[in-house]
């Protein structure tokens, strides 16, 4: 970046990086891991995110939501760099997914869902919950991670994902229906009552 547009000096940059960015490093790592589902790729993605955050630190306004800013960088890096070379050939882009789920009569939402009770979910193991989440398409998985695991609000998710708030809301609703269905089918197959 041109020095004339530099907002911070080296000491300030270092201070922001250490005190505003690095405090979120575990959350970023978990997000990266849940997206890539691969330990090595998640480490690379985390490093890339940190490097980019430092490189573009002048576009960060001190005291604003650093966590959301960093998650946005990580999500963009994942889409632009990692998704393309992903080992998972089943991944499609956000727009394709949105179009599919907005179309009438798609199979997932019209399939009858076995009843699922809260006591059943309470009794499920961590692996069962994790497997259900991981088996979801990455676009739906992402909104659940951001909302239910990282406690981002809809407006923050809208900025992280570059989509309108209305789309956050509808995508989240569909994602939760899909997750619930996966848990219900799994519970039924395992004989949970």
């Amino acid at each position: 970046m041109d020095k004339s547009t530099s907002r911070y000096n080296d000491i300030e940059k270092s201070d922001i990086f250490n005190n505003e960015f690095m405090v979120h490093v575990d959350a970023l790592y978990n997000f990266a891991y849940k997206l890539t589902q691969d330990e090595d790729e998640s480490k690379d993605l985390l490093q890339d995110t940190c490097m980019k955050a430092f490189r573009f630190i002048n576009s960060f306004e001190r005291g604003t939501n650093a966590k959301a800013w960093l998650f946005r960088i990580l999500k963009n890096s994942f889409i632009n760099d990692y998704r393309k070379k992903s080992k998972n050939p089943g991944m499609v882009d956000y727009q394709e997914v949105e179009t599919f789920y907005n179309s009438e009569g798609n199979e997932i939402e019209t399939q009858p869902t076995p009843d699922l009770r809260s006591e059943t979910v309470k009794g499920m193991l961590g692996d069962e919950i994790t497997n259900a989440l991981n088996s979801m398409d990455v676009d739906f998985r992402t909104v659940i991670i951001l909302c239910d695991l990282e406690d981002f609000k809809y407006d923050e998710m809208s900025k992280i994902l570059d989509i309108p708030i209305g789309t956050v809301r509808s995508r989240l609703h569909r994602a939760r229906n899909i997750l619930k269905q996966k848990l219900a089918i799994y519970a039924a197959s395992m004989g949970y009552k």
Partner: protein
Amino acid sequence: MGAFVRWIQKAMMSKKARCPEEEHWLELVRLMLDGQTTEEETSYVIKHINGCYRCYDNYDLEKEIRAALKKKSINLKVSDALISEINSKVKA
């Protein structure tokens, strides 16, 4: 007495007791749990779920799924070695 209450609950949870606007209320319940409703909207949702077994059950299940996701998901910590690597790359 307990068996009778369970029988009533089961009967209320049967298909006949399904809320005619279940999907609509489910969406509102989710918005409420996400902190996206106003005080007035929250009261409106609570009033409905307190009078509708099906929607109350959905509310309970939604809360449980969220709690399970949070409690049972993998929570990784970045190793000191990786933090050192990041710091050295940034400073390079």
